[in-house]
């Protein structure tokens, strides 16, 4: 059988050692009624590696990844150097598990410690954990953490301009947790969140802002932190495009209390949205309230430096229902992959990729001037909202020409029905921008656009 190595002769010897007449006899204590109904005969039979390759290739071919897309909105296409997946994918990283035995897991442990250090540096914060499932769940965990830190505050304030997935996940996580209400904070004409009144801040454990927010607009965290802290409310920044942190003032420098981000942009493929990686960083003084795993430095019996999982008393396997989170398996290998990416690019490479994104998106906005207008006046990084009449119709036509003209924002914001959320990264060259401009300028019926050959 595939992947099960025993020969019939070996099974015999083993059964004798066990004292069982057959493998079936080992299952005899499972109630007969259950066993009779447990057949898997309705499943297809197994196939060999050759057939599997053929099948997967034909499935992959039904995904149109060759199209030109300007989609961001929480998942960002970036170039990943070959070394990143080859190194993180090494079998010794990929097939180990949580490093419960540190003496034979130093590879994972040191890499994770380096990841924590790199995330702290990227966010400008003091501590970072070993990673969460994704940006949205990290945001939800951050909100719950503010509730532990400010236990008597019945509100959490969520910017309307925070990515809707993040708001939805926070909402899901909050249900059932008694008496916490979440309040939506509106955005203004510049696309930035209008800071809530002191009265609201005073009753809230936290204010959560996107950074950049879902419109790509850069919030003023420094002002928000000052306002929140004046009322002892914690400020949480949530970054969907982690690369932006290489260009923007760090959450740490701005005075944020908890900075979370989706790390996918930093060396992880789009993979239809997962696995990504939740980055979670905060202040030293809050470390015992952090959710998730932490790796710390120590020494071995001979005094050599080494790394271990630490502060586990926050975690479910020790604290059970009083744990700071229920997380167990996290996204370990993604964290390793991200730190490989960050190491490879380093200070200069990362700054340059970020600058390339910023310049590219602004060049695109410039190119589209006249075809549409910028919806918001606030500063942005690599993503912006274009107001354009007949947004949905034009989007559909561009599609027929093989161009995905970003995201029609009406799906998420009814008030933005005539707006497209467009993203340009280092993967979009001038020719790609021309194709988008041509596709969006086109206001003819779809059939015509196809023959015009924009694809």
């Amino acid at each position, binding site marked *: 059988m595939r992947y*099960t*190595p025993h020969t019939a002769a070996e099974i015999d010897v083993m*059964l004798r050692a066990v004292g069982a007449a057959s493998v079936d006899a080992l299952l005899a204590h*499972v109630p007969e009624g*259950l*066993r009779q*109904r*447990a057949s*898997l*005969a309705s*499943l297809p039979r197994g*196939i060999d590696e050759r057939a*599997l390759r053929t099948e997967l290739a034909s*499935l*992959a071919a*039904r*995904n149109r*990844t060759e199209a030109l*897309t300007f*989609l961001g909105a929480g998942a960002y*296409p970036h170039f990943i*150097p070959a070394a990143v997946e080859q*190194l993180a994918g*090494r079998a010794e990283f990929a*097939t180990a*598990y949580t490093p419960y035995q540190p*003496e*034979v897991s130093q590879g994972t442990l*040191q890499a994770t*410690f*380096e990841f924590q*250090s790199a995330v702290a540096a990227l966010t400008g914060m003091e501590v970072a954990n070993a990673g969460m499932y994704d940006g*949205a769940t990290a945001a939800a965990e951050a909100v719950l953490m503010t509730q532990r830190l400010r236990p008597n505050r019945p509100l959490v304030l969520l910017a309307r301009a925070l990515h809707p*997935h*993040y708001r939805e*996940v926070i909402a*899901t996580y909050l*249900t059932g947790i008694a008496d916490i209400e979440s309040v939506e904070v509106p955005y203004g004409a510049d696309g930035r969140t209008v800071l809530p009144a002191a009265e609201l801040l005073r009753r809230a454990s936290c204010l959560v802002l996107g950074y950049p927010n879902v419109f790509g607009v850069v919030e003023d965290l420094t002002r928000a932190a000052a306002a929140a802290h004046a009322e002892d409310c914690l400020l949480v920044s949530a970054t969907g495009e982690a690369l932006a942190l290489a260009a923007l003032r760090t959450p740490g420098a701005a005075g944020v209390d908890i900075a979370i981000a989706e790390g996918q942009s930093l060396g992880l493929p*789009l*993979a*239809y*949205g*997962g696995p990504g990686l939740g980055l979670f960083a905060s202040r030293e003084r809050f*470390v015992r309230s952090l959710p998730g*795993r932490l790796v*710390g*430095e120590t020494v071995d019996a001979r005094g050599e430096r080494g790394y271990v999982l630490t502060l586990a008393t926050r975690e479910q*396997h020790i604290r*059970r229902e009083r744990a700071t989170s229920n997380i*167990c*398996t996290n996204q370990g290998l993604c964290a390793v992959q991200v730190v490989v990416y960050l*190491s490879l*690019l*380093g*200070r*200069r*490479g990362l700054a*340059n990729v970020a600058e390339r994104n910023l*310049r590219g998106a602004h060049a695109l906005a410039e190119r589209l001037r006249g075809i549409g207008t910028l919806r918001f006046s606030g500063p942005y990084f690599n993503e912006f909202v274009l107001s354009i009449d007949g947004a949905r119709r034009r989007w559909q036509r561009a599609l027929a020409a093989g161009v995905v003209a970003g995201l029609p924002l009406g799906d998420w914001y009814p008030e933005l029905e005539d707006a497209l959320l467009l993203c340009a990264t*280092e993967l979009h060259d001038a020719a790609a921008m021309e194709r988008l401009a041509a596709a969006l300028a086109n206001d003819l019926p779809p059939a015509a656009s196809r023959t015009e050959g924009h694809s």
Partner: protein
Amino acid sequence: MSLPAGVLRGGLLPEPLIFERSTPGRTGADCDPHEVGGPAPDAVLPAALRRDDGLVGLPEVSELDVVRHFTRLSQWNLSAATTLYPLGSCTMKYNPLVNEALVRAPGFADLHPLLPDAWAQGTLELMDRLADFLRTVSGLPAISLQPAAGAHGELTGMKMVRAYHEDRGDPRNRVLIPASAHGTNPASAALCGYTVTELPANQAGILEVATVREHLGPDVAAMMVTNPNTIGLFERDIQAIAEAVHAAGALLYCDGANMNALLGVAKPGDMGADVLQFNLHKTFSTPHGGGGPGAGPVAVSARLEPYLPTPRLVRDADGLRWSEDFPKSIGRVRSFHGNVGILVRAYCYLRALGGDGLVDVTAMAVLNANYVRARLADVLPLAFPTPSLHECVFSDRELEATGVRTLDLAKRLLDYGFFAPTIYFPLVVPGAIMIEPTETESKQTLDEFIAAVRAIVAEADTAPELVKEAPHSTFIGRLDETRAARRPILRWQPAAAK
């Protein structure tokens, strides 16, 4: 004469932190920021919003530095690809290399999650077929692939339990959980606002229906059971328990982390489960990645179906598409559609094995665990003599006289070239040693492992210090965990900042 620092250790290369390899101005991969023109950052970002620290604290190294660094680090791990990793409850089976190659195909890897559904039919089809597989295996009619791991599946499941009761205007507040349960069970229940009541098992390690009945009441929202439980024992009363739970108006949550013991043997749906999370990284062989990513799809009975997270995959004339049109849904539990890369691997595994292969998986997993059990039971006391399935749990109580504890035995096993079993879990077994060999291990490997455990038990008598000071042959010696927790150092800092 002692060798200078920085020297080969038994063939392995030492390596500092990547930050300690930095040189100002060096970079491994770069990008020309001017490629497409566009304004300079300071022309469009006000100074107060601009980063001005030059990304201090990130590494500055060459591509070769990076390659050597992570290649060296990787070699410091034991892993399922290099040795037996008998970590109980974690199902560290072989991770087929072909799956790693398949998931990296650009058709899967480069797919944006917000592409129009019509443009993602390959992945949607794969997800739909995977869902079908899992429905069949679980005997439950509906499923969501969204949760990112087992605990996330638990959370999702328990949120549905809450939604169900609230929907009926009967918001209950208590959940029953056996004392042997994995820590994520109580933690997940608590995250849904439930208080937890722990239930004891009987002398045989089995949860009795009487015990359950005793604790049931109108305030009980659900019972969470792991079956086989974390001692590897099948909960024989499970159907009766389900009936009792249901009769009390509560729901039955099944922790599916141990599904490796049940393929073709019993379906949670048939046991009366209302909700079950899969741990694809365990049962369906996706690599554990040093702690993830995993995937924790959650399957439910008809009565919980309306509450499944959205978006859900539906099929219409045009093919598969995502729908949010489920008003009773608990909503999203994460962004986008799940750890799709893990789902692809799990699909490959299921497709490669097929129905017959899955039945064989469980049969061989159970045989292997019972073989280890039989061959060690004379030197280590079993936690319970009850027949077990895919794993076996011993205790260290007979070692007590030697002063050797479970931890020591685990550390000494490393010297023998094996990863250690899960230890001190489940909490109900003193000094628990929980061994799950999985079906992919050969008899030779098991025999070598058995010989090692037996040798260590003998060493505990003849040379207890050898065991208590283990490991001796690893890259690094026993690490001081207390020190790490007392004065936590959680990141490297630039010298100036220290």
